[in-house]
């Protein structure tokens, strides 16, 4: 039953806070807004606009994200705007954009119910995306085969026809071996390859070394299982390939995504009803945050910041001048703090202290800032470090707007509650600061913001609020108010007419690069991370309800390893990586393979998992390698009854 110590609920903020003499004290809204505006103005005057960074919120509405990037680009004059999509799915966007020119999943949930083969790669949607998995199970009950590729035998894998338990970080060898087997078995879709792709010959040569035997040695997956997946995927009439953070939270994540996309190009499993690629997003509006241009290289609707024509259209609409270069990603912003090049940070609804890898480094970097302004529902660990804290309303139930889900469906968010007295709407706060910095934006309604942005974004143009209501959400692209496009993307690739077909999709030539944090005698266990069913991310939201399933943080370990180390279920151990160590109780479970251990980051106040993780990042998308740390497990001497006491967070 409920165990309170794992989850002290956070309380809502109702008054702005200002740091004075090292302490946060309550302040009036007037004072807090004046101080924030003065801080940003001063920083721009002293260090220029590029010393400013905005972390926008992947959980807030599209409208808020649009306003946050507009604030950054117009009021401040920089492209340094990013969000935590960097910490999860930017590689999917980057990989899909590189192949198809557009960074969204290609199919709809409904298609998973009407397909012949479903591959879930590097994810446990049964826990992390339960309602998507209901669509998967509909497909399974209708006869689709299910393959699950994941280091852990997850609750999703328990539903699979085949589970391929690969070693962490060997996704590319596995994908290449599948590709090679499809080619050698003569199961490629040659017409599709010829018409709709480029680089096949190079790809064929590139994957040639990855024989089934070589892949088995590297991935730990039996050759016969790899062969079976290759043949099943290539021979299926329709096939869906879905992935989650097991593919993207690696130092070479964009390459991982490209390697998976290659398989769809080989077989033509993209651009048709029932055949496609489906990255599952971890947060409610990760897709929308990027779509809205709250990223350093794109304007709303994936429009390239480097294209002068596009820039000039936005300059005219916003009456401003835009820098002709990309801004800093979230990862680069944190690095720039080390160099003293980033001096002011405006954080809206993000908790980087607890969500970024290597907690102590993040805290040290934030301490170098002249100004840290945090806008949030709660006094998070990040807000506790701020100079100014602005209490916000909850986007999903205290404001109007839209979110965009993993199938690109833009859906209406509606205000159901009044925020607690003192908390204010994100857009109103942004506008009040903008006004104090010389941009009197008044207070537009969510719908007015939406209408402004859809005038600028062709893929959103046809989505009026009225239509969104009428259709229970509309998937992008939607170019006009008179039509709806099919629920899947890239049907153009199947056209016989080269003009209609457009740009072909290039095969990605990506090499294998094992996890950066190497295993050795001192650190022999591979630690990977993920979510459980009833908790969420850093626990700020989910600690608010009392889940009967909640056990608090545990180190999941295989029965073989537990026996070898002499560990009993529930026993507290010390887990150490090359960066830090924590105390955590073990949970012995057959879901783990020997040599593999698993933790979440849902209970940072109990066990700060990010003390262990590594911040090696993907050079293209900037996503950190949360999924692969090397750790050691040591027994700790226990006094009688010590197991009854709450685990103590420890840092080395």
């Amino acid at each position, binding site marked *: *039953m409920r165990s309170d110590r794992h989850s002290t*609920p956070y309380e*809502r903020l*109702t008054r702005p806070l200002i740091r004075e003499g090292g302490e946060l004290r309550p302040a009036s809204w007037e004072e807090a807004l004046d101080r924030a505006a003065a801080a940003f103005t001063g920083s721009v005057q002293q260090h220029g606009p590029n010393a400013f960074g905005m972390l926008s919120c992947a*959980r807030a509405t599209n409208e808020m994200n649009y306003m946050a990037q507009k604030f950054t680009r117009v009021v401040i004059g920089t492209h340094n705007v990013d969000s935590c999509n960097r910490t999860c799915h930017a590689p999917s966007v980057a990989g899909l954009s590189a192949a198809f020119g557009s960074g969204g999943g290609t199919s709809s*949930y*409904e298609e998973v119910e*009407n397909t012949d083969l479903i591959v879930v790669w590097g994810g446990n949607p049964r826990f*992390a*995306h*339960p*309602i*998507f998995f*209901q669509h998967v199970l509909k497909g399974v009950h209708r006869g689709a085969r299910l393959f699950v590729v994941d280091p852990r035998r997850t609750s999703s894998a328990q*539903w699979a026809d085949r589970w391929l338990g690969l070693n962490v970080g060997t996704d590319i060898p596995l994908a290449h071996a599948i590709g090679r087997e499809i080619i050698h078995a003569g199961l490629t879709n040659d017409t599709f390859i010829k018409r709709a792709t480029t680089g096949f010959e190079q790809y064929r040569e590139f994957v040639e070394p990855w024989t089934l035997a070589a892949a088995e040695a590297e991935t730990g997956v039996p050759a016969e299982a790899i062969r079976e997946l290759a043949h099943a995927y290539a021979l299926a009439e329709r096939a869906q390939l879905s992935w989650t953070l097991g593919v993207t939270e690696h130092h070479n994540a964009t390459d991982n995504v490209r390697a998976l996309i290659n398989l769809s190009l080989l077989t033509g499993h993209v651009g048709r*009803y029932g055949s496609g690629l489906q990255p*599952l*997003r*971890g*947060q*409610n*509006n*990760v897709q929308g945050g990027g779509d809205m241009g709250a990223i350093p290289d794109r304007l709303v609707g994936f429009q390239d910041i480097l294209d002068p024509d596009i820039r000039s259209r936005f300059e005219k609409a916003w009456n401003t001048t835009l820098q002709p270069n990309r801004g800093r990603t979230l990862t680069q912003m944190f690095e720039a703090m080390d160099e003293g090049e980033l001096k002011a940070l405006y954080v809206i609804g993000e908790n980087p202290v607890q969500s970024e890898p290597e907690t102590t480094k993040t805290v040290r970097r934030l301490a170098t800032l002249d100004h840290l302004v945090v806008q949030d*529902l709660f006094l998070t660990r990040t807000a506790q470090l701020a100079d100014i804290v602005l209490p916000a309303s*909850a*986007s*999903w*139930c205290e404001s109007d707007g839209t*979110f*965009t*889900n*993993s199938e690109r*469906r833009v*859906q*209406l*968010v*509606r205000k*159901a*509650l*009044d925020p607690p007295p003192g908390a204010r709407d994100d857009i109103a706060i942004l506008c009040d600061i903008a006004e104090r910095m010389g941009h009197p934006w008044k207070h537009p309604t969510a719908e007015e913001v939406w209408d402004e942005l859809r005038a600028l974004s062709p893929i959103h143009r046809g989505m009026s609020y009225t239509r969104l209501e009428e259709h*229970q*959400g509309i998937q992008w692209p939607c170019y006009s108010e008179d039509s709806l496009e*099919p*629920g899947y993307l890239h*049907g*153009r690739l*199947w*056209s016989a007419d080269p003009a*209609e077909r457009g740009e072909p999709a290039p095969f990605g030539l990506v090499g294998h690069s094992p996890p950066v944090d190497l295993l050795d005698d001192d650190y022999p266990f591979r630690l990977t991370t993920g979510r459980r*069913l*009833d908790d*969420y991310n850093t626990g700020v*939201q989910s*600690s*608010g*309800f*009392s*889940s*009967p*399933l909640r056990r608090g943080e545990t180190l999941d370990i295989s029965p073989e390893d537990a026996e070898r180390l002499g560990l009993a279920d529930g026993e507290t151990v010390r887990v150490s990586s090359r960066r830090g160590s924590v105390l955590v109780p073990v949970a012995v479970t057959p879901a783990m393979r020997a040599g593999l251990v698993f933790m979440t980051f849902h209970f940072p106040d109990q066990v700060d998992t990010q003390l262990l993780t590594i911040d090696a990042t993907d050079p293209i998308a900037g996503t950190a390698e949360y999924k692969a740390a090397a750790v050691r497990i040591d027994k700790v001497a226990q006094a009688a009854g010590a197991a009854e006491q709450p685990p103590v967070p420890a840092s080395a």
Partner: protein
Amino acid sequence: MTTTPVTLAPPRRLVDVTIDGREVRVPEGSTIMEACEAMGTDVPTLCYGDTLAPRNACRVCVVEVEGARTLAPACSRAVEEGMAVATDSERVRHSRKMVLELLGSSVDLSTTPKVDEWNERYGARPDRFGPRADPAPLGERDARHAGTHEVGDGSVAATVEQPAKVDNDLYVRDYGKCIMCYKCVDACGEQWQNSFAIGIAGRGFDARVSTEHDVALPDSACVYCGNCIEVCPTGALSFATEFDMRAEGTWDEERQTQTTTVCTYCGVGCNVTLHVQDNEIVKVTSPHDNPVTHGNLCIKGRFGFQHVQQRRRD
């Protein structure tokens, strides 16, 4: 830009049927209930679920099909060309009256919508079987074995009443209100959730909804998605908030608003309908016709709303 045609279901032939003497044309394969709906004819039902395959368990919806020996459940009987249906004949009214009386005498229907209206319409008097027997002590019904049922002496009306099961902080199982419609079993099983934490134990009047081996909910396969609450027609399954507020006498649906918005716990984009009373979320449901959820949620979407209500008290 190529526009590839979206796959649509093949067109369905239309068939003509007569309902209470009026002709109506509906797609082949429709149920009698759907045909009645198309005409605006009300058919009472308890066990029908718009997201579930019909179970024909409650028998409240029976109608008379011309030429048929027995009454037919409108919720699952498909229409046929030329079929003539009577929804308000003497035979239908008599059957519905009896079913409502048997259900009403043995089950607590105090939170079942529309039952009072139907009792009046069909002249049903559930109290005519005498005073209700005392509720069974908690666990007594769950311990009954098939073949050992003891028939009462007729001095009191037998009931399924027993104290509510409160064994977790999220939802309550009040099986004194259970009419054994099987909707929770189906929602938890293959049709939606696939958790299989709910089944039927026992036989005859002793049959009841149970977890595996009657273990307490926290020890069962339950994952607290609440998709059983979503389909329960009688309030036997309810949010702990609703159960507590009803006990306090503060539950007031007249003062509640329902607003549909989008859950924030992952990127799937489930639609959640927030039931709000006095600016507090008291219950969460999901629209049954929503293309993302079809009325289903997970533990976080269903119960994870409390964080917005943690008010700072300073």
